[in-house]
């Protein structure tokens, strides 16, 4: 049944200049005319129409195309030009201390193309010559050391897939629905294959003080010289000093030539343009862990050093700001992740969280990594409230917004990992809502 559907959609001709317009026309006709059969019948036959146009030979078949090397570093098709990182208007005052969001609604699988990885700068993008770059490791160590990139590339390397999520992802939704699409609600989230040197190895090389060295200070070499405290447990567990992302050197936006990666921990701790690691015996209480990135609790106090990004998920298709143009079969798909380890289960609800069913997880499911989930759905054309709920290997269950608010209130800014609701209206329009 699924196959026949796919075949049906494939043979529909696509006019050259108005790609897919016929799809819309046909969807409108069936919607408006009410000609669509309900239920299973709709799944079986999305009206491929005996009136299908006869095929022409397209222009690109009848000519020689550009040769190899046209783009020595390849770019996406020009028809993908809409798929871009975007800023949320009014969120920040300057572009140098700002954020751009990953277009999660347009991506497939789990890997974020490096050019679409969300950006967060605190003092603009530094332009660093790798030959001049240095990493210092000092503090409570036997021997402070200064590493060149040559030194770091020579050390044993590892590659792993991990997500990076800003601690302020979904911040705008604490009080109410505020932004229209999943790009803006959840797009401070990306996932890459990272390659670098285990931080544990570098710490052991330095002869760090195993008794007193409980914390690390990580510092960037950008104009913010951004600093964050890292717990030694995370540093020794799976943290890395990374220089590569998705098979190439890090993009400048992600810290070229060197960044810290502390898997599962909020993005601010993945210090980019990393120049210094200092071993110490107490947290540093830096600006980015006191004036910023601390959770404002209902009692008017701040919860500090809330490093770990808890289990969270979001449906990326269908999602807010989209239109479902046909009744019948659609695949619900989205992303789940946890800073505490592997995702073990994702449930999907189409009735606002009253009833749930288990989604399929894309293998392999990796620790502290995005996990793609998928779930069949036959939309009957009626109103629906779509939700997804992640569960991780510690047994933690992603909470509903109201459950999170009962503990954290609505003023926290950071670490909003609540279940997201997308409302599907009868005209197919999907919007961002919150439900009780």
């Amino acid at each position: 049944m699924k196959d026949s559907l796919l075949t049906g959609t494939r043979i529909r001709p696509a006019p050259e200049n108005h790609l897919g317009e016929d799809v819309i026309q046909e969807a409108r006709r069936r919607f408006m005319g009410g000609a669509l059969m309900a239920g299973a019948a709709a799944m079986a036959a999305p009206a491929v129409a005996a009136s299908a146009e006869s095929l022409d030979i397209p222009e690109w078949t009848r000519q020689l195309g550009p040769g190899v090397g046209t783009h020595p570093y390849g770019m996406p098709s020009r028809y993908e030009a809409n798929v871009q990182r975007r800023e949320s208007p009014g969120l920040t005052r300057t572009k140098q201390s700002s954020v751009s969001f990953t277009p999660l609604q347009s991506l497939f699988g789990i890997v974020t193309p490096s050019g679409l990885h969300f950006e967060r700068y605190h003092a603009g993008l530094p332009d660093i010559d790798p030959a001049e770059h240095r990493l210092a490791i000092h503090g409570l160590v036997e021997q402070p050391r200064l590493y060149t990139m040559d030194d770091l590339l020579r050390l044993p390397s590892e590659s792993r897939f991990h997500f990076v999520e800003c601690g302020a992802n979904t911040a705008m939704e604490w009080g109410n629905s505020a932004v229209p699409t999943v790009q803006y609600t959840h797009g401070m989230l990306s996932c890459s294959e990272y390659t670098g040197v285990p931080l544990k190895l570098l710490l052991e090389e330095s002869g760090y003080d195993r008794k007193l060295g409980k914390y690390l200070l990580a510092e960037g070499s950008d104009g913010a010289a951004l600093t964050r405290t890292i717990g030694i447990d995370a540093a020794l567990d799976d943290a890395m000093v990374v220089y590569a992302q998705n098979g190439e050197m890090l993009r400048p936006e992600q810290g070229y030539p060197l960044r810290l990666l502390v898997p599962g921990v909020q993005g601010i701790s993945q210090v980019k343009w990393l120049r210094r690691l200092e071993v110490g015996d107490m947290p540093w209480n830096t600006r980015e862990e006191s004036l910023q990135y601390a959770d404002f609790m209902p009692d008017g106090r701040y919860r500090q050093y809330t490093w770990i990004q808890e289990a969270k998920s979001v449906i990326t298709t269908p999602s807010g700001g989209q239109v479902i143009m046909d009744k019948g079969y659609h695949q619900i798909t989205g992303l789940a992740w946890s800073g505490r380890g592997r995702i073990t289960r994702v449930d999907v609800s189409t009735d606002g969280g009253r009833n749930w069913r288990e989604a399929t997880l894309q293998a392999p499911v990796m620790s502290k990594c995005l996990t793609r989930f998928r779930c069949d759905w036959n939309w009957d054309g009626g109103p629906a409230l779509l939700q997804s709920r992640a569960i991780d290997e510690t047994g933690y269950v992603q909470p509903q917004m109201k459950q999170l608010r009962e503990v954290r209130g609505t003023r926290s800014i950071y670490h909003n990992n609540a279940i997201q609701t997308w409302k599907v209206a009868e005209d197919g329009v999907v919007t961002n809502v919150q439900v009780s």
Partner: protein
Amino acid sequence: MSRSADPRGAMRRIALLVVTSAVATAALAAGTSPRFGFGKPVSEADLAAWDIDVRPDGKGLPEGSGSVMDGEAIYEAKCASCHGSFGESNEYHVLAGGVGSLQSAHPERTTGSKLNHATTLFDYIHRAMPYNAPQSLTDDEVYALTAYVLYLNDIVGDDLVLDRESLPTLVMPNADGFYPGVGFMSVDGEPDVKAPACMKNCPMTGKEISSLPESVRGAHGNLALQSRPIGYIRQGESMAEVQAAAAGGGAPVAVAELAPEALAEQGGCLACHAVVGSRKLGPSFNEVRERYQAEAGARAMLLAKLEAGGAGNWGEMPMPSVSYLPATDRERLVDWILSTPATGATP
């Protein structure tokens, strides 16, 4: 993953304890020699220019001092344009005001009301301010600015002079307003929210309690132009918006236009023609230009040549048709060939 199960680490800890109770220096030397030893051994003094962090206990504070009075002049010159004369500007981070308000119904979150340690103020100003010229201030200036921001918050008097001794002793109004989120500091920490994994007839009403306010509709631009125009689920606030985008309603599907020489290369022209110089299989472009530039019908003749190909003008070797290039590209090539100076520079 569990460090407590790492016997090697545990043994090293024990070993370290034993040796440090003996002669410290000898023990350190014998302790853990690096396995690789890459990286240059340096002294803490070598790192001084980068080692600028200041902790709440004052470790890292440099020598020097600065007064509220000194700070006022520096602040007016270097800070007030962004933060306001009284640290009140909400344009960037608000520096002053709201002290004591955090536990009220209307908390004002400012540097003065929120910060728990004055040392952090020094650390941040030193490393990152002024925004457009970070790490340009002297240590004395940073002490003075720290003092002045505290003064703007009525935390200190106007006679204060700060230095490495006095700064860590200051008690900020919100000194007790922070506590560590221990549940979030390790993977096995205790979560603060425990939700059940209910599957059937769960306690949700499905009642909509919030939706996108009408006032922010459109604030993020035309959503239909923010995803690809393919598929049965497309982006757009309505079917009409999706339809308009698919019909070419301003979709930014721009082609970066190749420069003429790049076009000639991609079109395969340069396999037979040089841009300047002498003949390869065919004449160089400057030879073509020199011969035909002054002729009235040259453009039409060359366009016909590109479309149909042919031989005779420059010998018997025929030029194949390049009609595979779009007509607009052929016109651009001919115009370029007829107008380009002999240097081969693109117009």
